[in-house]
């Protein structure tokens, strides 16, 4: 790993890992809170029934459906947590950008200020050789910054485009240019610099262009 990239993983990486894990645990707590209250309500209904009181039986069905849905939401969250945990396995790897984007959308979706985001399915097979963990961090922080510049109800669309053979462009589009005041985080600039990623402000949002292969990161380790 180049010393700068290595420093970045150590300095920013742990902090990023911690903040993502905090948001995941918050999501899991919400899920448990729903299951706990719904199970409690089932118990309340059972007690009412024992006392000979009648109630709408559809309430029981609603409760069991709600618990089943929350358990599925919990499994989904744990799958994302696992996927995120494995993003540090390989320092440098041929990475499907679509997978990184999909995970970043799900992980940032746990933030209270997240906005509705649609990931365009095109470009599913596009890969880049980079640090998957640093790329995840860059996209996560970029999405977080964009969400904060949007209003409630705004929607964001993410598209992957290939304008030339040596690079890949991620298009973050909504209905207006991004507010630069939300991009004052030096960590984003530092990540973009190491990953040789270039931000461009557009009339409808922002683009992020990445090299197909970041040669500077080649010494980092395995390229799987």
């Amino acid at each position, binding site marked *: 790993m180049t010393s700068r990239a290595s420093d970045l993983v150590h300095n920013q990486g742990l902090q990023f890992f911690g903040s993502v894990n905090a948001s995941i645990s*918050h999501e899991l707590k*919400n899920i*448990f809170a729903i299951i*706990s*209250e719904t199970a*409690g309500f089932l118990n309340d209904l059972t007690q009412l029934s024992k006392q000979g009181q009648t109630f709408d039986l559809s309430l029981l069905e609603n409760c069991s459906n709600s618990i089943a849905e929350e358990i599925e939401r919990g499994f989904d969250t744990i799958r994302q947590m696992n996927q995120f945990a494995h993003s540090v396995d390989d320092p440098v790897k041929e990475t499907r950008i679509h997978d990184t984007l999909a995970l970043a959308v799900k992980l940032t979706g746990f933030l*209270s200020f*997240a906005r509705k985001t649609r990931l365009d399915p095109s470009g599913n097979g596009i890969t880049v050789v980079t640090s998957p963990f640093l790329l995840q961090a860059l996209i996560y922080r970029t999405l977080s910054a964009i969400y904060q510049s949007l209003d*409630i109800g705004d929607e964001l669309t993410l598209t992957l485009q290939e304008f030339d053979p040596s690079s890949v462009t991620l298009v973050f589009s909504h209905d207006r240019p991004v507010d630069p005041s939300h991009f004052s985080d030096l960590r984003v600039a530092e990540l973009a610099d190491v990953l040789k990623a270039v931000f461009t402000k557009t009339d409808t949002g922002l683009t992020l262009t990445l090299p197909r292969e970041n040669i500077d990161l080649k010494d980092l380790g395995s390229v799987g």
Partner: protein
Amino acid sequence: MTETEKIHLLLVDDEEKFLNALTERLKLKFFDITPVTNGADAIEVAQKARFDVAVVDLQMPGIDGVQLLETLKKSHRFLEIIILSGHATVDTAVACTKLGAFKILEKPCGFDKLVETIKEAYESRLKKKFENDAQRMKKIQSLAFGQSPLGILRELHKMDDNQK
């Protein structure tokens, strides 16, 4: 418990399923519940109806729990507000306490504990309101001496600050 004796509770949480389950359970405990899923709606309903206690989630899109606490406390000085939090940091807890939160409970806090805390908050509200009413009554009694009827009315108007 009659309708008028019920504790009027404002419940604010963006997790709709949590809100619905909690609302149903609290109804069985004879609370009068108004559930809303965001801070803006909470402010709007609080302007139209009187609430004794509010239970507010800390992390919500738009107006968050801290902002809602601050807004509600400014316009409803006797409303007691319980903050529900997934992960309250020490800084957030200090901020909520300074803004007048009655208690901060960690989610999931246990239903019995929540009910107990709501009752304590209601008692606290009553106590503050009675003390305030007693002070106002004293003032009103003192006004009755040596004032013209118009003067009494003016003083009463000053005292009537529409406290909720």
